[in-house]
């Protein structure tokens, strides 16, 4: 069973970010970068499926050379090999899905797992677009994944408003990982050392035959407005009055 997992390099969610003066992006100097936490959950799920059903786990990441750091981090968790799509221009979710579709054509995985969204720009679209492009069934926001013994279908549980929904999808399929799917493992020392020897294949967008043509461009980033200090209210009546008349939420 071959499982392909996508990983994106994102700024550490704990880092305090600053916007570049021209508003085109964030200042990257001194910021720590990590594997997108949802992608890490996707990697963990793939490893668990492999441990149960045997097979191979492959990760793919798109970006400039620095993303190989995150590929290595995934290899250190136990992933077998990496694919590094070298691309330095700007792109949107649609371009990412287009590139991934080409990788899928080459690799022919049985399951593709993506994080449900990247925590940097919170687009949350790549998984859906990829499924559409490939014509594969999809199960988004998975909180539980079970592969059938004959490895032909996946039973996926999703947390929806008011309960759980369980879907069955035929393989090959697209799954996107939600927060409570699992807790990613720590990298063990032997796996960290082995990661150095594992293969990472570099490919270009051109060689894949993908076309990058962003439909979406970021015009400007601004910081959220500073929070104003709160006020102390004298009584419950006071509070209710303010909620009604000022906040207009009651």
């Amino acid at each position, binding site marked *: 069973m071959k499982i392909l997992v996508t990983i994106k390099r994102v700024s550490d969610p704990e880092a305090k970010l600053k916007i570049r003066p021209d508003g085109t992006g964030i200042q990257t100097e001194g910021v720590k970068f990590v594997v997108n936490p949802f992608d890490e959950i996707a990697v963990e799920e793939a490893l668990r499926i492999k441990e149960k059903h045997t097979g191979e786990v492959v990760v793919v990441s798109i970006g400039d050379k620095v993303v190989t750091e995150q590929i290595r*981090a995934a290899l250190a968790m136990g992933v077998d090999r990496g694919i590094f799509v070298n691309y330095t221009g700007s792109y949107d979710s649609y371009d990412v899905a287009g590139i991934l579709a080409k990788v899928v054509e080459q690799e022919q995985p049985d399951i593709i797992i993506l994080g449900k969204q990247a925590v940097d720009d919170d687009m949350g679209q790549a998984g859906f677009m990829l499924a559409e492009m490939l014509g594969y069934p999809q199960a988004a926001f998975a909180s539980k994944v079970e592969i059938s013994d004959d490895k032909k279908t996946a039973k996926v549980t999703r947390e929806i408003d008011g309960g759980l929904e369980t879907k069955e999808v035929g393989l090959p399929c697209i799954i996107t990982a939600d927060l409570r799917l699992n807790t990613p493992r720590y990298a063990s*020392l032997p796996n960290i050392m082995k*990661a150095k020897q594992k293969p990472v294949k570099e490919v270009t967008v051109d060689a894949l035959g993908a076309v990058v043509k962003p439909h979406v461009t970021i015009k400007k980033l601004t910081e959220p407005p500073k929070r104003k200090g709160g006020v102390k209210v004298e009584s419950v009546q006071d509070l209710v009055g303010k909620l009604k008349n000022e906040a207009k939420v009651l």
Partner: protein
Amino acid sequence: MPETRNMTFADREEYGKLRDAVRRFNLKELSPVASDCDEREAFPVDVLRKAASLGYVGPHLPEQYGGSGDYYAKAVVYEENCRVSFGYNLSLNASDLLFANNVARHGSEEQKQRYLPPVIRGEKIGCWALTEPDAGSDALSITTTWQKDGSNYLIQGRKTFITNAPIADFFIVIARKPGSSKVDGGCAFILERGMKGLETGKPFKKLGGRCSPTGEIVLDGVRIPKDQLLGTEGSGFRDMFLSLDVERSYTPLSSIGLAQACLDEAVEYAKQRKQFGKSIAEFQLIKEKLAVMSAELEVARRYVYYLIELVAQGKRVSKEASIAKLFASNMVNKAARETIQIMGGYGYMREYKVERYFRDAKLLEIGAGTSEIQKLIIAKELLK
């Protein structure tokens, strides 16, 4: 720091990755229990087991027994542990370095097979016992004795201040032949809990490193089979001095980890705390403290990494180990004191971790050879 890249192991990518991984593990698993374990004087054995499952226990030990044969990895784990809980590392170190490294270096094949795997898996805990009530710095003055008794050895004496003694499964005990003097007549033995005549006392109440149980061992005519001898008869002290150089080389990493923890707290606090209408980090007297802490820490860090390079390459490091230990332990005591100072009244409270760091730091000027003894060693090498 691009200009220092690849200068030592610590700059290599895989050790950076290891550092990140251990840091992450420690923040999630060790940090939440560290203050509580200190308060209760209890060792977090479940954290040790989890760490062991990831290969973070005994990484320097040979691969065929479950280690990774990697002295650099040991250094990274050591430093990162002390950044979160000095006491946890103190006990871990007594088990996988003081006990297990001696078995790995001087033990027979049977001894290695019996003792190394369970220690590396975190299932058993080891300790190493030299110090006695009347023999501390003057290690050769120990009065615990061994005697031949047919095909057995008979051991008599008392050890004190032994890390892990109250909880250990395995013990290395250093003893001498009655009437022998100086480095002759020394023997190291491997003992196991449950052997008749071996008793351990209750954990001592201590100033720092409180989650690491320290205690006494009473050896009242312990009779052990011949094959529990570690190394050869009479080689005990010589073997000990060789391995002590290695162990003394790791100790300064405690100072580095602890000082880093102090600096992290000091910087964060100084930025947030406001007095006289601005953050105290804006006062030059506070800036000076932060700058000096950082300067001394980085200088010590680089020297200690260099020392670990020497150790990993199998070089002799007596003077270098003493220089590192002396300097780094002095540095961390200053750093801890200054961090409390920067935090004012809050720093003095148990609720804040720096109060623990301050108490922990003191042991670094005492254990594994006091600062005075380090000075003697350095001077001796200079005046040779």
